[in-house]
């Protein structure tokens, strides 16, 4: 094996672009583990060193230098990979330059050129993001902060600055919002309507708003807070602001709130605020305490129920049609079970969306008992993500354990491939449960990626003379650019059972293994 490092001085690219680039070049030369294209920060150098990809040239790189680190059998393969990487970066730069009338150098330039109201989507590395967000807030811009690795202290400072100015500061680690019909981050093309949502959960928000839109309702505004907002340390301050905005918005007639259970003190204040509302309010605290005092509010337990209840209260769409989907599941499960051997007993959930993984883990736990997971609430059920699965298992593949130095699986779903094959080959696996995210920000054709992986797994299983049941749901709308119907067809051609919601997919998996 030959290792080569090439350093391009003073040449900044964002990490997500580089992770996707590394992944593409790696796939081209046959191993994603042998290619890293990264900025020369200390943390990146640690990652490259640990992977055996850092040579003396890379060691000497500065944080503003771009490092190409490639390992291959021959010099020719390395040169080919380098040429490919350069070509992708050059085409990206050329594309941005063509649009130069809309590309500016500083936050101040951008703010001066746009009219109010302004909102900034910030996805810079966490260590640089805070100072830019402060500048934006001083320019009276609302902010969606996608970046993570932001301290609680900084989160509080930014949110306090925003609230003093009556601005939104959604995040950190906020992936999704739709404001005045504009999708921000990972978002979906929605029908406009009278249901307003506030969520401390990215894919949870996407699932509920997409189901509302797909089943005939419409969304006025969809706001995010970032997952940490409802913890004691932040105190739910941005959720409180989001709820106030929706309560005061004349176009919002029904409110939906989605999150994991807030900290007790935060929950008390939040419920009090919601109970004051003149508008019907649906509350979905995934895994929340059934006995909490939520008089006057509509408590639901799944994301699908949140969408159905909102549609019903808004007197729009056809919630019953969505609920009716559950009616056929028992018969479907019976016929799927006939294809399984007696040893096949376990569900393996492989998720790109964190909240969807969490919802399935809860539903499976309630119906089947222990569910192991890298996001388990009980320490005895916690699974180191990279370790083999045990019994019923649900993995959130967007968790840090899987994504260090790699793009998030909603952007690059091929990261699921290796694990999918591993689970399919486990003799205990009965059902593999999946999610496919579509919409803005997501991969351009995610179903084709997973369909190819399933096809390969099925070929190996066929040699062993057995089958595994694949069940999936597509999180997104019928209007999304990836074409929902075409994505569904790609999955169904591989024998995947595709259902309208994650809750239905999880229920079918549960019924299939319940003998």
């Amino acid at each position, binding site marked *: 094996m030959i290792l080569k490092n090439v350093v391009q001085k003073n040449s900044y690219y964002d990490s997500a672009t580089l992770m996707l680039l590394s992944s593409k070049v790696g796939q081209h030369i046959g191993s994603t583990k042998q290619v890293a294209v990264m900025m020369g*920060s200390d943390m990146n150098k640690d990652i490259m060193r640990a992977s055996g990809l850092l040579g003396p040239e890379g060691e000497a790189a500065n944080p503003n230098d771009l490092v190409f680190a490639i390992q291959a059998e021959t010099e020719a393969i390395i040169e080919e990979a380098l040429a490919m990487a350069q070509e992708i970066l050059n085409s990206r730069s050329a594309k*941005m330059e063509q649009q130069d009338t809309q590309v*500016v150098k500083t936050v101040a330039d951008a703010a001066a050129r746009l009219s109010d109201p302004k*909102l900034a989507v910030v996805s810079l590395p966490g260590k640089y993001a805070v100072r830019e967000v402060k500048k934006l807030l001083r320019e009276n811009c609302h902010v969606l902060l*996608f970046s993570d690795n932001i301290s609680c202290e900084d989160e509080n400072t930014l949110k306090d600055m925003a609230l003093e100015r009556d601005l939104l500061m959604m995040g950190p680690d906020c992936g999704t919002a739709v*404001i005045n019909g*504009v999708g921000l981050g990972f978002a979906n093309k929605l029908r406009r309507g009278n249901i307003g949502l506030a969520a401390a959960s990215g894919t949870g928000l996407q699932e509920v708003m997409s189901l509302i839109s797909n089943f005939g309702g419409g969304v006025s505004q969809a706001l995010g807070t970032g997952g940490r907002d409802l913890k004691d340390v932040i105190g739910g301050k941005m959720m409180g602001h989001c709820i106030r905005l929706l309560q005061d918005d004349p176009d919002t007639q029904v409110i939906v709130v989605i999150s994991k259970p807030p900290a007790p003190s935060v929950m008390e204040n939040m419920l009090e605020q919601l109970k004051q509302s003149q508008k019907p309010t649906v509350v979905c605290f995934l895994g929340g305490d059934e006995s909490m005092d939520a008089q006057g509010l509509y408590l639901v337990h799944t994301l699908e129920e949140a969408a159905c209840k909102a549609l019903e209260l808004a007197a729009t769409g056809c919630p019953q049609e969505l609920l009716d989907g559950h009616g056929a599941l028992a018969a479907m499960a019976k016929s799927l079970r006939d294809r399984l051997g007696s040893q096949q007993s376990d569900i393996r959930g492989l998720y790109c969306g964190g909240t969807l993984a969490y919802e399935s883990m809860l539903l499976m736990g309630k119906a089947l008992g222990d569910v192991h997971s890298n996001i388990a609430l009980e320490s005895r059920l916690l699974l180191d993500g990279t370790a083999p699965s045990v019994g019923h298992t649900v993995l959130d593949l967007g968790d840090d354990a899987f994504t260090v130095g790699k793009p998030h699986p909603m952007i690059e779903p091929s990261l699921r491939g290796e694990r999918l094959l591993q689970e399919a080959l486990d003799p205990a696996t009965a059902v593999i449960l999946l999610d496919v995210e579509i919409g803005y920000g997501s991969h351009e054709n995610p179903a084709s990626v997973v369909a190819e992986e399933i096809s390969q797994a099925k070929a190996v299983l066929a040699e062993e003379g057995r089958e595994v049941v694949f069940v999936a749901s597509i999180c997104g709308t019928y209007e999304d650019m990836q074409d929902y119907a075409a994505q569904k067809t790609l999955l169904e051609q591989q024998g995947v059972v595709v259902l309208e919601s994650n809750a239905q997919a999880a229920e079918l998996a549960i019924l299939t293994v319940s003998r």
Partner: protein
Amino acid sequence: MEQKLFGGSLSVINLGLPSFYDDLKRQGATCLHVDWTPPAGGDVRLIEILDRLEELG
């Protein structure tokens, strides 16, 4: 400062992932992309010192 967010148009500034900017353009949103590079050559300590000087100034 009172600033009405809902009900009208929205201008969006993108700072970071170019793909988010591409999706804003695709939607026909009014948007600008900031071609951001780390200040002070990415040296976080030096950035902190610059910020402190700016605050003092």
